[in-house]
């Protein structure tokens, strides 16, 4: 609301120029967050993307100090977290689902990941008709996630950051969907234990370590249901 009021004043030329410059800086910071988040989420370009995200956060902080009216920091932090997480699941799992699994980059990434954390990504890799992981149960989840869930969630995270109501609503829906996918994925892991966790170097410990990143949905659900939704009014 405050942002909207300020924007109107800016149109009328009431707000001093330094405030407009700060608002422009905040807008620029958002672009760094979006592009950096997507690059970081690709995992292959994380070395470029992650510093871009950090620069975006620093720029936003500077804009705030110079007088820009910005959204609450909790929205920025949670939104960027969801953005990077959705991009990681979308782009990375996408390389296993699509023909990128035949490239040297794809094979290097997935075989290494499989050897360390999940045997389904190196035992008989690229040996099914669909290519990629040889675990049958993984493919339906990949199609669901790469074609529906994570593109939606990526867009929702961005809209959430931009304080759009549909972004908040879509994040709530995709958070529940994420939990469903995660549970199905866990069942696959457990039922095919010898070929998956049992065939990985880090085994159950590695599994527990990377599951930290799946904390997101569980943390966010109480937030979504207690926050004042009227803030998302853009």
């Amino acid at each position: 609301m405050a942002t909207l009021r300020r924007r109107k004043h800016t149109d009328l030329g009431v707000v001093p120029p330094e405030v407009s410059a700060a608002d422009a800086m905040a807008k620029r910071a958002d672009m760094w967050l979006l592009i950096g988040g997507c690059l970081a989420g690709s995992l292959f370009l994380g070395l470029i993307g992650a510093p871009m995200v950090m620069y975006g956060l620093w720029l936003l902080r500077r804009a705030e100090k110079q007088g820009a009216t910005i959204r609450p920091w909790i929205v920025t932090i949670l939104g960027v977290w969801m953005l990077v997480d959705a991009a990681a699941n979308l782009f990375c799992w996408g390389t296993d689902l699509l023909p990128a699994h035949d490239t040297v980059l794809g094979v290097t990434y997935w075989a290494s990941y499989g050897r360390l954390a999940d045997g389904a990504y190196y035992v008989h890799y690229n040996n099914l008709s669909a290519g990629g992981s040889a675990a049958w149960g993984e493919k339906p989840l990949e199609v669901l996630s790469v074609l529906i869930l994570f593109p939606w969630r990526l867009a929702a995270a961005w809209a959430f950051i931009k304080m759009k109501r549909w972004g908040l609503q879509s994040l709530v829906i995709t958070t529940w969907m994420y939990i469903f996918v995660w549970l199905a994925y866990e069942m696959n892991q457990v039922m095919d234990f010898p070929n998956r966790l049992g065939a990985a170097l880090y085994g159950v410990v590695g599994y527990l370590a990377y599951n930290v990143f799946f904390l997101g949905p569980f943390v966010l659900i109480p937030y979504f249901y207690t926050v004042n939704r009227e803030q998302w009014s853009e």
Partner: protein
Amino acid sequence: MDLDRPEILGRPPEGVARMHRVILIIGAVTLGALLFFTMAVMPYFVWRFGWGYNP
């Protein structure tokens, strides 16, 4: 902190505000870990197994 700025949020009840602070801390820590992971994962794989690893 922004949660204490009533002109932006309205005032949430104290218990909710505390929970939001905890969620913010968890989010910030996990985002940091995730960014570090995205930077480290590919170089680590190449260092550990080599480029083109396909057992």
